[in-house]
């Protein structure tokens, strides 16, 4: 069937089951938007392209589906860069369409020309510059296949304007394969057997679960495996939700701002079972003092992660869910009673703690109360900084996909647009954005999107008037020289809410916290709660960057 390139794209998206696109139009994508006008696919108009990518990212994390983005050429495309890098670092499936100048105009510094495939080369899983409209259908198919399989990630399709208007054949392939793209075969029976033996012989094992568990939908298997083997579980920031955090075997988060007991357990373990995690420096601290007594079993879908930072004794290259099922079917149970007793002592002696007395609001208290009121189905997105780490420590996640945070890139400005995407994908769930006054100001233009789409998102700003996390480092390591970290004047967020026509409350006293949060959650529409917190509160415990996990300050 003959149609225009733009029609081919829309048709292909419909065939892929795409329900929503996050985007922003411009000259180079007008033909595409013209065809979208007649389509049943929903389009969410953001107010900055970066937010389109973050929203698609949040949508993908909340639904498990691939997020789809459209931006125009040049500045539209370059505005996406942070969002694409963020998705790449956290292995989030995303397909991005960028407009491009006409094929004949490429390479001449034409108006709004940017070499976006070149610019994004290191931050995509793959990219295409379409030169032949007849290949469009198979390229779209390929993009979704690549984005959503294996280690997932962003795939970019650059669309010259004349390709969108050219006449093209719509011949949508059912399947697509690349000789250079192979998914890992399952681990061999021998590999599984050896891993099982090692697990059975261990006495101080720890499961270290990362974002791969969430991506693979393996949380159920992980919990089963942990319960059956009685092995405690710590997670990364990306792995939050891999096991309910109120589970007796849960150790909370490991690493720089991990719990004392998680860091101690990992450091004293004789076996570390890494599942869908990549031994990031924020987790390991100094590598040569990391888990020195432990053998390592590394389960990951990406072969390149196996041995990248830490030498594993057993590698199980495959999908976390499948590998865990294999392990479960053959498992040998280690004797971990004494080990769990030891961990219980650590938990008791050094729990996460803060003290809410006096008349200043402690951010940890806000998060704890929020968790109680929100319930286990609520989806939380975070910004970056202290707010993110307090959320990671005190917001006990029960279900996978309900905690959405920028892990690898640590992108301020992620949380609000990610909440937009999450709420679009999960319209019936409560979506909360835990924010900081600095991060909020990085993408607060998205309040307009929230209003336009009538999204009942609750934004909780932990307002300290500082780039708090940077200030914390300056306090601890630079003699309290607060260079460029004070954000005064912080705008009046309540008035800002009013300007957008949404509810806004300011909370200044501890006793106002719970009523305000209750009111926000019960309010039918979007709300900003500006919580004025104890300004110089710090995130503890903390392992200084590049330090040893057991050498925590603030415990």
């Amino acid at each position: 069937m003959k149609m225009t390139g733009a029609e081919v794209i829309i048709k292909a998206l419909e065939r892929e089951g795409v329900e929503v696109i996050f985007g922003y139009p411009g000259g180079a994508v007008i033909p595409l938007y013209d065809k979208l006008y007649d389509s049943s696919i929903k389009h969410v108009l953001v107010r900055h392209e970066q937010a389109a990518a973050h929203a698609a990212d949040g949508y993908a994390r909340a639904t498990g589906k691939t997020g789809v983005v459209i931006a125009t050429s040049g500045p539209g495309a370059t505005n996406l860069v942070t969002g694409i890098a963020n998705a790449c670092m956290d292995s989030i499936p995303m397909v991005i369409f960028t407009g491009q100048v006409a094929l004949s105009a490429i390479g001449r510094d034409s108006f709004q020309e940017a070499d976006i495939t070149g610019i994004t080369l290191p931050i995509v899983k793959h990219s295409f510059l379409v030169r032949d409209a007849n290949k469009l259908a198979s390229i779209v198919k390929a993009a979704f296949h690549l984005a959503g399989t294996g280690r997932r990630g962003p795939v970019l399709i650059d669309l010259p304007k004349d390709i969108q208007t050219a006449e093209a054949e719509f011949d949508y392939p059912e399947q697509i394969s690349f000789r250079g793209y192979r998914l890992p075969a399952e681990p061999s029976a021998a590999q599984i057997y050896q891993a099982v033996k090692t697990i059975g012989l261990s006495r101080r094992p720890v499961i270290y679960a990362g974002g791969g568990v969430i991506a693979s939908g393996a949380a159920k298997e992980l919990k089963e495996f942990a319960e059956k083997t009685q092995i405690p579980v710590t997670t990364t920031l990306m792995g939050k939700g891999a096991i309910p955090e109120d589970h007796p075997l849960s150790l909370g988060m490991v690493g720089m701002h991990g719990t004392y007991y998680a860091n101690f357990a990992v450091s004293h373990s004789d076996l570390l079972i890494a599942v869908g995690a990549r031994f990031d420096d924020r987790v390991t601290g100094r590598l040569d003092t990391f888990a020195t007594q432990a053998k390592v079993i590394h389960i990951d879908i990406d072969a390149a992660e196996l041995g990248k930072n830490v030498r594993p004794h057993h590698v199980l290259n495959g999908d976390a869910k499948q590998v865990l099922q294999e392990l479960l079917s053959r498992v040998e149970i280690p004797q971990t009673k004494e080990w769990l007793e030891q961990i219980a002592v650590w938990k008791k002696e050094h729990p996460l703690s803060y003290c809410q007395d006096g008349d200043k609001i402690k951010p940890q208290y806000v998060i704890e109360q929020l968790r109680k009121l929100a319930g286990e189905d609520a989806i939380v997105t975070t910004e970056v900084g202290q707010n993110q780490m307090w959320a990671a420590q005190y917001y006990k996640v029960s279900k996978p996909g309900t905690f959405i945070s920028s892990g690898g890139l640590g992108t301020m400005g992620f949380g609000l647009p990610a909440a937009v995407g999450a709420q679009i994908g999960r319209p019936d769930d409560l979506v909360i954005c835990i924010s900081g006054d600095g991060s909020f100001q990085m993408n607060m233009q998205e309040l307009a999107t929230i209003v336009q789409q009538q999204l009942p998102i609750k934004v909780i700003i932990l307002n300290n008037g500082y780039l708090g996390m940077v200030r914390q480092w300056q306090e601890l390591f630079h003699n309290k020289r607060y260079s460029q970290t004070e954000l005064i004047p912080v705008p009046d967020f309540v008035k800002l809410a009013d300007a957008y026509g949404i509810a806004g409350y300011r909370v200044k006293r501890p006793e106002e916290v719970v009523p305000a949060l209750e009111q926000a959650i019960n309010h039918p529409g979007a709300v900003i709660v500006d919580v004025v917190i104890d300004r110089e509160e710090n995130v503890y415990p903390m392992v200084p960057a590049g330090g040893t996990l057991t050498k925590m300050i603030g415990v």
Partner: protein
Amino acid sequence: MRHILAVLVENQPGVLTRVAGLFSRRGYNIESLAVGQTHDPEISRMTIVVDGDDRVIEQVVKQLEKLVDVINVRDISEAEHVDRELVLIKVKAEPKVRGEIMQIVDIFRARIVDIGHNSLIIECTGDEGKIKAIEKSLRPFGILELVRTGKIAMVRGPKYEEE
């Protein structure tokens, strides 16, 4: 240690950039890279010489394999292989030293491919040792220009893909 990687890639625009970009981004050292089409016009073959310990090379190989346009990567350093490089050397050659230069060319089984007024262009293929040696022998006459292709290599015996 230096490793020779034989890399089969899709013969498509942008592939070289992806491979080169990967090396610079991850901080790997390319010593040389030679690329050209194979007998299958849809496939190009790169020979990449890279320096690094076993862990680094393992990462290089795995990261290369992750690129969608990379079909196959093999470290052939350990295998029995033939490697060759081609060099063109423009050397100063006044008439009175030409005889001497031609003798050197003979010894290395190289060829003179151009004769200029006061210079010669010499073509030589060989392994690295040979290329180095001819360069050294010609240096006293005055090398005006030198260009090398970078190493290409092939495993002896059975067909590459079947290994």
